[in-house]
């Protein structure tokens, strides 16, 4: 068997730093220090050890203790404050502090980088080997790393540097000792990452195709570890620099005037200043610059690391909505927590609410991001959910179904912005204490939204494991919910009600004491549904509620859900990519593609006589179990990238009936002349002749039954 590895996505970019002010500032700082480190030696006006004999005679001698400074025992020279001759003044020994700082920068950065290089090499060796080979090797190597991690670094470093004679005079020895105390953390991170890479498709593929272990590690694993290696190299450089400064401050880094001579470094400058009372005498120019240099270099490295973090974890990348950005994007309704911001509100009264409507979405558009970078995820969608009915919303992944539904109840996170539209909730609560009348959800503030949320509109998401708080019991989650919405209930009443709800979805009330991870996938989703029903909502938004479950559980839960709907009478917006499922469940179906609604029809009409090429393709993805054989056609190509939509009808590159017009003009959802069908397709407009597949006759009412039979297993 040959495996075409080119089909397996490897990586798009190895490491691209976001071009944020943070990263630019970090690069600038680090580059500045690098330049100083390289040219500092030449640029220094004096030798760091030279005493300024010219100015020495003018030195004021004050009584004091000379110690072993080589000056008369009863006199203590005063250092010079910064001047034109000495930009950073002088030390107490009349040495030029600026020259010392330049020389120190070189040694400090050299030791920091060298130690980080050794430590990174060690951590790659340990981490990648442990993560890739696994088993006993992993156990052993991880144990070594964990032991090194547990022993406090600086004390170990002190003891090592103290016992190793002349450690201070050899920068290589110092760097090696520092590396030994700093490698473990990165090794652990790299091990974890390697472990997760090992089981990814492209690595499996190389393994199956018989590549050698070394080659896989070098060619497949390491390139993907580059962001992590880069981050840990920066982190270790920082740690090593601090360690060097710290042991030099303790006098273990080797004295530049000693024998054998150590190097000038920031820690040594701080040590000399501290030991010669520079702090209590106010000679800040002597000891403050090296300290600030450490902090600046540290800040620069940390800022670069932010950039890498944001590359690795995109959740950190999305900037918050600043007041300025909000103003620029024309956002009127503030964001706040858990409330999607709205740019423009349509205040126009709706042209008479549709009969029986409970949730009315009109011209809803949603962007991700602001200004020029905005991605239009949902464009001008109209949907009406009728009381007690099931409305299906179908489409491929990324077509904007979930965005549309969550935007309607303002649950989308930043950087989502609702750019236009109107969402009206016509409330007729089943129980007496809900809000009544029509509520404009896009104009509502958090308090008003909170009144509607869950008590009138509940949500069930795809993965119940993610939707349940993992660290508290199911019972506690019911309790939080009931306490927030039914403050008059006592603790016992809440507990009894929660048990009753679990019972309703076929679960034992004992499960209230369970944590989410103790339940099976099906049970978790049942618990979630029970929670959704807790306040007897008028609307349920079901976002792929059964997709993550196996077919049998899926069927059980759907039957349960539809039974509950018949009993309790809520309306449901059922989102799925599985059109055949909807045909069975839904009264009406809307089909979405690339952020727009493309077809809207009663379920049986849509199933029997689709008018949209896309719907036709979706319906022919699923083989019927009974009835005559039809060729499976599917839809060629893949869903479009919302950042780069095709011109005209977004579906035209994948449409086998596409006209020239489809490439230029965007079709809008509207009725087909002379019928009650609605579609957004040029094939049905202005006298174009739709192909026979898309002009099948409308089914009779009795056909619904047949449709169900086709897809029932």
């Amino acid at each position, binding site marked *: 068997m040959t495996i075409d590895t080119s089909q397996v996505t490897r990586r798009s970019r190895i490491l691209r730093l976001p071009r944020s002010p943070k990263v630019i500032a970090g690069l600038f700082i680090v580059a500045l220090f690098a330049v100083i480190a390289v040219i500092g030696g030449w640029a220094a006006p004096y030798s760091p050890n030279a005493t300024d004999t010219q100015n020495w005679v003018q030195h004021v001698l004050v009584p004091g203790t000379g110690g072993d400074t080589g000056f008369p025992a009863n006199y203590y020279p005063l250092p010079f404050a910064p001047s034109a001759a000495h930009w950073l003044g002088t030390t107490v020994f009349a040495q030029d502090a600026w020259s010392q700082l330049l020389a120190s920068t070189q040694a400090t950065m050299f030791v920091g980088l060298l130690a980080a290089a050794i430590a990174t090499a060690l951590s790659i060796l340990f981490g990648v080997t442990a993560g890739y080979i696994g088993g006993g090797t992993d156990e052993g190597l991880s144990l070594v790393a964990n032991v090194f*991690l*547990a022993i406090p670094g600086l004390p170990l470093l002190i003891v090592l540097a103290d016992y190793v004679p002349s450690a201070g005079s050899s920068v290589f020895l110092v760097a090696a000792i520092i590396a030994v105390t700093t490698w473990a953390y990165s090794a652990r991170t790299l091990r974890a990452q390697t472990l997760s890479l090992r089981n990814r498709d492209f690595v499996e593929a190389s393994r199956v195709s018989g590549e050698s272990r070394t080659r896989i590690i070098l060619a497949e694993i390491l390139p993907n570890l580059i962001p992590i290696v880069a981050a840990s190299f920066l982190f270790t450089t920082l740690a090593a620099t601090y360690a060097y400064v710290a042991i030099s401050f303790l006098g273990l880094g080797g004295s530049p005037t000693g024998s054998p001579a150590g190097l000038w470094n920031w820690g040594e400058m701080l040590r000399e200043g501290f030991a010669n009372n520079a702090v209590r005498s106010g000679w800040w120019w002597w000891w403050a610059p090296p300290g600030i240099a450490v902090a600046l270099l540290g800040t620069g490295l940390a800022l670069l690391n932010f950039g890498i973090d944001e590359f690795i974890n995109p959740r950190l990348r999305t900037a918050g909505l600043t007041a300025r950005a909000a103003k620029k994007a024309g956002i009127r309704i503030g964001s706040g927590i858990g409330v999607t911001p709205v740019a423009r509100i349509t205040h126009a009264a709706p042209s008479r609410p549709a009969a029986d409507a409970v949730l009315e979405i009109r011209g809803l558009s949603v962007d991700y991001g602001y200004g020029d970078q905005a991605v239009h995820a949902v464009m001008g969608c109209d949907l009406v959910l009728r009381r007690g009915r099931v409305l299906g919303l179908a489409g491929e992944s990324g077509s904007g179904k979930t965005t549309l539904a969550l935007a309607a109840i303002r649950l989308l996170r930043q950087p989502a912005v609702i750019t236009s539209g109107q969402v009206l909730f016509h409330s007729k609560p089943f129980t007496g204490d809900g809000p009544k009348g029509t509520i404009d959800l896009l104009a509502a503030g958090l308090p008003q939204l909170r009144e509607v949320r869950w008590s009138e509109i509940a949500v069930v998401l795809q993965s119940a494991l993610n939707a349940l*708080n993992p660290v508290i019991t199911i019972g506690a989650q019911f309790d939080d919910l009931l306490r927030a919405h039914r403050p008059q209930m006592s603790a016992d009443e809440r507990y009894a009600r929660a048990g009753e709800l679990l019972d309703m979805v076929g679960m034992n009330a004992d499960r209230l004491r369970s944590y989410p991870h103790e339940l099976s996938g099906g049970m978790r989703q049942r618990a979630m549904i029970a929670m959704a029903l807790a306040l007897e909502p008028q609307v349920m938004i079901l976002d792929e509620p059964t997709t993550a479950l196996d077919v049998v559980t899926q069927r059980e839960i759907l039957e349960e859900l539809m039974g509950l709907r018949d009993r309790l009478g809520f309306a449901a917006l059922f989102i799925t990519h599985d059109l055949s499922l909807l045909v069975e469940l839904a009264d009406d179906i809307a089909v979405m593609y690339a952020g727009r609604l493309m077809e809207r029809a009663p379920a049986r009409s849509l199933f029997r006589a689709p008018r949209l090429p896309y719907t036709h393709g979706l319906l022919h993805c699923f083989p019927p179990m009974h009835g005559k054989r039809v060729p499976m056609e599917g839809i060629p190509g893949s869903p479009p990238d919302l950042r780069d939509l095709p011109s005209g009808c977004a579906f035209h590159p994948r449409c086998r009936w596409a006209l020239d017009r489809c490439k230029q003009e965007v079709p809008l959802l509207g009725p087909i002349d002379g019928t009650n069908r609605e579609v957004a397709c040029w094939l049905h407009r202005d006298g174009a002749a739709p192909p026979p597949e898309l002009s099948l006759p409308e089914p009779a009412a009795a056909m619904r039954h047949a449709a169900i039979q086709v897809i029932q297993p």
Partner: protein
Amino acid sequence: MRAVIRRLGVYLLAAWVAITVSFLLPRVVPGNPVAGAVARASQSGNCNQQCVMAIEEQLGYNVHTPLWDQYVQYLGNLAHGDLGHSWSENAPVGSLIVSFLPWTLVLLGVATTLSFLAGSAIGTLIAWRRGSWVELILPAATFFQSLPYFFLGLVLVLVFGQTGTMLRWFPSLFGYDIFSVTPGFNLPYIQSVISHSILPATTVILASLGGFILSIRNQVITTMDEDFVVVAQAKGLRTRTVIWYAVRNALLPVVANFTVAISLVVGGQILVEIVFNYPGIGFHLFDALSKLDYTLVQGIFVVITLVVLAANLLADVVYVALDPRARQAA
């Protein structure tokens, strides 16, 4: 219980490694650095012939028993709490460390706890109010996180310390006023101890705060994108409850990574104690280093390691208490 026992095994091993390193180093390093120390000890009036022999035995200098026997004896002594004899203080290292330790532990415990709590609160606030002015704290936190602890200590001495030159608000030398109060359970002593701890504690808090703020901010941001937080908002729970859901979960990885944080704080505090002449083990480590009192250095290293390992174990227990999944596995 299994996970905790496993961690305990790692810590026991780490303790053994630390003890063995401090035993082996003076014995295997070429050009025995101990000789000078022993010579200095015998020259100083502090250390008589018997005391010199005790140091020689402790550091394996001039001792002719096999290494293994020395090792067994060393471990045996440790087991009895005998860490050797300090010539510079002319006292058993064990009892010296017992007198230093409370200063360090109280300062470390109070400062780390306050810093962690404040860091959690500020980090959460920044994560929650993304895009508002509180994000301006971030660059400041990054800069403070990058300041070496002892340098921050020096700056605070200069600006606020009585031995500095500017405001002279707080005492900045020693653990209490050694000239005018008597140690013991009396009000002047307690007041003096508290006022003397203000600057060192502030240093440790400010220097460690930035790291806590940044890591908790990142974790809260990551957690807030989780479905269960979206669902909590969909449930119309109070904002307070929603924040609690996110923070409670965001704390887990932070507590799990406490090993690194505690190691950094302990390392930093050692140097802070030196800056303030604060009478904890860090200051005495520095003192012992400068006097070449290797026995004391060795003892302090072993004890600091044990303290850090105990703190790690505590963090593990807290983790297990916080995460029901770990509790089940434990």
